[in-house]
């Protein structure tokens, strides 16, 4: 139960607050579609 509590507490601390308006970068792949998708 100590481990669980520690993990729970640690998890709380890990949740770094995102700055307002934070937009995650687009995934590196797949890339843009140049014509159309079929």
């Amino acid at each position, binding site marked *: 139960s100590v481990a669980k509590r520690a993990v729970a507490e640690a998890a709380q601390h890990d949740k770094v607050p995102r700055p307002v308006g934070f937009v995650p970068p687009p995934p590196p*792949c*797949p*890339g843009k579609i*140049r*014509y159309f*998708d*079929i």
Partner: protein
Amino acid sequence: VPAAPPAPLGCDDPESEAAAAVAVNYINGHSHHGYKFALNRIDNIRVVPQGPNNDIMFLELDLLETECPILSPTPLENCTVRSLAEHAVEGDCDVKMQKVDGILSVLASKCHSHADSSEDVRDACPDCPLLAKMNDTDVLETVSAALNDYNSKTTGSYLRLLEIGRAKIQYHPGHIIATEFAVGATNCSAEEAKANVGACQLLPEDQSNFGFCRAVMVKRPSQDLQVDCQLYGHQVPAPDIPLLSRVVPSQDTS
């Protein structure tokens, strides 16, 4: 502290686009059938460092067929990508490349092409005809009649059929067959061919002269046949690219 590994390449990074351009040029240069393909999307890219300035790259590319026959000298950038309504054809290619001191080269490629679904064509154009099967009797009859018609009227070389590129059949209103096929000039004039067509062979590679024909046969409401053929003239093949090898057409190319 060891240097952090480089961030993975993004599919839209300039380096990825440069590699994809080399790969597409290689694929078109080493294909002998159908049409040129253009890059539609880089699906994935994986870089495996081999040492200083030496990387192996694995690319997954999504290509689309253009209207340019594979033997056409038209530069790819001038080739229109076939639209959804014309029944697009997609190519999926896996390409292994090497980049040494910034120089990109293709080590291997494997592609598979397939026509778009009929649903997609219907969505784009409810009344547009679909691609017909290559061995459809209407298609074979139209190609044969069109080539005979052209050869009977030309004052130039007797042309032989290389392959049928694509065909579409409309059944309503009217019964209309539209075909596209690749041809090669032979060592006969059309007049000589009338006497002994068996002696007419494709010109040797150092004189080869390929071309392309488009034909439309109307069976109903009244019979009509239109055919137009364009010869490219002799093309000097690029040093590392064979001009044409007699291989069975297939959908997979490696």
